[in-house]
């Protein structure tokens, strides 16, 4: 469901039936980034605490991609989703093109696609995430 490259187990936090994408929060200034970097872009501090991406957001913008990266199955709907005021994440939108609208509420779903491999997409309503396979 998610382009041509998948996340490995170091990119997620799995707990029970929940799998979340691993983000980082600066230990000094609290700046929230995804994925982690060597230094905080805001204060240059080098210590971070693990955090997970929020699961709910709103659609900032979108496109239907007809010519994709080499190997990608087209067409696909993708967009930028604001998960909170300081975090915008790009991903596939697993919704019908006719239903898509800027500002619509979306949910981030991470699922295990194979042993130790994960993918994510945004859906329009709550669905039960499949079982993770451990992080």
């Amino acid at each position, binding site marked *: 469901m998610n382009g041509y*490259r998948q996340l490995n187990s170091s990119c997620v936090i799995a707990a029970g039936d929940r799998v979340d994408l691993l983000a980082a929060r600066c230990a000094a200034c609290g700046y929230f*980034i995804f994925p982690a970097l060597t230094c905080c872009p805001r204060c240059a501090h080098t210590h971070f605490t693990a955090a997970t991406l929020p699961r709910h957001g709103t659609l900032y913008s979108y496109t239907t991609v007809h010519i994709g990266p080499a190997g990608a199955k087209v067409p696909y709907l*993708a967009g930028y989703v604001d998960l909170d005021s300081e975090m915008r994440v790009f991903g596939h939108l697993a919704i019908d093109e006719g239903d898509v609208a800027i500002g619509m509420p979306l949910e981030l779903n991470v699922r295990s696609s194979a042993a130790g491999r994960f993918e994510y997409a945004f859906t329009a309503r709550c669905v039960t995430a499949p079982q993770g396979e451990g992080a």
Partner: protein
Amino acid sequence: MRDVHVVGTGMVRFGRHESTSFARLGAATVVEALGEAGALPRDVHALYCGTVFGGPTAAQRIARECALTGVEALNVENACSSSASAFRMAWLGIAAGAFDCAVVVGVDQLTRLGGGVLPLDEDDVEASNGLTMPALYAMRAQRYMHDFDLAPGDLAAIAVKARKHGALNPYAQIRQETTVDKVLGSRPVASPLTVQQCCPIGDGAAAVVLAAAGSKLGGPGPKVKVLASHLTSGRYMQGDRDMTSPEVTVRCARETYEACGLGPEDIDVVECHDAFTIAELLYYEALGFAAHGEGIGLLRNGTTSLGGRTPFNPSGGLLCRGHPVGASGTAQLVEITRQLQGRCDARQVSRDGRTPRIGLAHITGGGTYGFDHAACCIHILGTESV
């Protein structure tokens, strides 16, 4: 800092050049620029090459073709801004007094990549999930249309204008005019952008010779001086950013104008980074020619068309001249130089019945997450009568 002049220009028509070697494609433009400047290889102290896909030591391979070996040679990669960045490095060296004369060449051969969208970094968190350059601009377009109540036909009108200009430019890859209906009916790439709203895949090269003011070198027409040279990089912002206001260009333009004391009202002609139709609209505003959300007015009232107050992309821009990425920066600077010298025939810009005196070249680019774009480079050139 010393004044620096553009004393020679060279360029090939952009298009399919896959049977020409990379080095020969670049060398043809270097030789033309040296000839125009009246420069011999011994007059040249440095060679800077901008390329993204040209591979290692592109400058040296071009130098070997045109008897420029043994000089300071440097290869510059900065995405679409590569050869504009190379131009800036050469300008900096001459202005600082390190050397007196340098050649700048930009080259790329995209047809050798096998077609499709430009490859991006597979480790990038967005590119690895399906982000492409057309998709990035398409999402800007979608949001812009939403925020400012534009229709797909408004974007298509930008392609129609670019095609009108490109039809007049013998160096342009695409020289056929089009209509709004044809633009909208062309193949979809990333909605709302169709293929006629995207720069074509092609090969090309362009070169300039730069020399310190007072040099004996120089070609036809009035002397063209570098009035401003500015390069900056994107500022990391993951959320809370307005993608209809391109951060790196807004900041680069402000810093450029502050450095040279000029403003949009002083500019007679612009070559901007119109890789996609929406881009030209965003850059009208980011470069200060229109307020945010009001850029379309400049297109509708003809301001940015040939014959208008400030023509944008008289060459046809990236949309029609073509966009072999590493070559586009120098191609813009060749176009601006020739415009200021009154050498552009059917596409010549005129300001109040005279040759334009000040022109601006803007190029940005680099698709990597967390930035509007990785790089932005702006140059302002002017004739000595300024």
